[in-house]
């Protein structure tokens, strides 16, 4: 019972935190300089990790799928199949999970450590609204950067797939890409990009919430970072499930 109460209590708190983001965090004056700095840290600095992972995913998915398609004589469908898998699901979700691990934990730990060492209070005393400066900027940056990272991840993943196809066969780069894009429609691309905004928002929101409400010293900071990763990863899957249902309503997947 107490666990259920705790869960409901925390869910209410997170919802209030989100409402505060829309009511306070989006009001002018805007912290443009800090948003750009956070976008650089969150977006640009995550790109190598996202890129390597996506490249490997594209490569492995192609190598693993090839024997089955060969068995059915459908080897020529390989670019289409891999393209749809990566763009619809694997690219956005893998990017979001990597960001939940990398960005969620770093935001949780950074804000948590600022909280327990009174840096957030110091900021408040020096005439800065810490919610706008620390929380709103990070949530905006994750919301904007996740779609960009996901699109790059898709492109790199498909390139990985192209290289994997060329291990056994010879396919030209334009032919491979035209086969991938011929099998895609707006119904694949729009929902897939749209859901990454929500993934980014969820990762930023949970990381900031956990860090901003951190307590009990260094142990609390560790716990904040850890629960930020766990909860935001779980939220990514829940949002993905909802996104699939909504996309199905509009595009009949």
């Amino acid at each position, binding site marked *: 019972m107490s666990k259920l109460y705790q869960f409901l209590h925390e869910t209410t708190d997170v919802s209030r935190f989100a409402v505060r983001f829309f009511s306070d965090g989006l009001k002018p004056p805007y912290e443009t300089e800090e948003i750009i700095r956070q976008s650089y840290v969150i977006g640009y600095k995550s790109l190598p990790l996202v890129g390597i992972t996506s490249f490997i995913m594209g490569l492995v998915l192609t190598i693993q799928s090839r024997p089955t398609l060969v068995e059915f004589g459908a080897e020529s469908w390989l670019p289409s199949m891999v393209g749809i898998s990566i763009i619809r699901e694997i690219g956005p979700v893998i990017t979001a999970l990597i960001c939940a691990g990398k960005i969620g934990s770093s935001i949780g730990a950074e804000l948590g450590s600022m909280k327990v060492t009174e*840096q957030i*209070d*110091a*900021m408040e*005393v*020096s*005439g*800065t609204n810490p919610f706008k400066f620390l929380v709103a900027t990070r949530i905006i940056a994750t919301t904007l950067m996740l779609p960009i990272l996901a699109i790059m991840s898709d492109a790199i993943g498909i390139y990985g797939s192209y290289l994997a196809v060329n291990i056994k066969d010879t396919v030209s780069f334009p032919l491979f890409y035209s086969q991938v894009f011929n099998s895609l429609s707006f119904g694949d691309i729009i929902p897939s990009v749209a859901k990454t905004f929500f993934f980014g928002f969820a990762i930023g929101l949970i990381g900031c919430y956990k860090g901003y409400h951190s307590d009990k010293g260094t142990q609390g900071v560790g716990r904040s970072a850890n629960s930020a990763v766990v909860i935001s990863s779980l939220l990514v899957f829940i949002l993905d499930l909802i996104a699939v249902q909504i996309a199905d309503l509009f595009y009949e997947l």
Partner: protein
Amino acid sequence: MNYKAIDMALPTQEKTMNHRVPAVEIVDLKKSFEDNHVLKNFNLTIQPHENVAVLGKSGSGKSVLIKCIVGLIKPDAGQIRVFGQDVVHLERQELDEVRSRIGFLFQSNALYDSLTVRENLEFPMRRLRLKKSKEQVDQMVYEALSNVGLPNVQDLMPSSLSGGMKKRIGLARTLIMEPRIILYDEPTTGLDPITSKEIANLMNDVHQKYNTSSIIISHDMSCIKRTAQRIVVLNDGIDYLEGNYEELKGSKDKIVRAFFL
């Protein structure tokens, strides 16, 4: 000497005519955290250019008190006036203006880890959007650091500084805004006796040079003796007793005596 008794004995008209506006005036302050009634009916008046120490056991609400003054914690009831302005009911923008006149030295120093010493000092100026040229900012940073005896650490990160140096930088960061009131939260905690003495002397220098009023929260009796003109004992949520160091040292009260053992 019991200032509160003298203050209360004066008729209102005489007070208005003879007294300057107090730097800080706290009336019947109450603050509870669930069932824990930290401040019950706390009263305190601090005159301009006066240093007052608040003495109390751990968990007695000393830090809560100064956090209420600067608006970090909202009291449940009571009034807090800073230079005559009631800070409890101020809007954020007005509160920020009052805060620009208050310096706060945190127990943990609260230096921003990701910024250099120089950026730490510039941060409050940048945030309050003060119109200063780069040369003026450079000069102010240099002066604030020189006043705490560390003019050459501008490019260092806080992680590479010792505890005493961090405390000095924390003080420099509050001084750069030229505050009229400084709130010290355990300024010598965790420092060795020699560094504690240096910090206490520095607090006195700041008091003289910047003509500030201060509230000093501390258990360190030697620091209090050096810096405070008046001591208020906070016990069971109220202003239990007050006087200067010698008066309290000679007190027969068991609670007060415990601090001098």
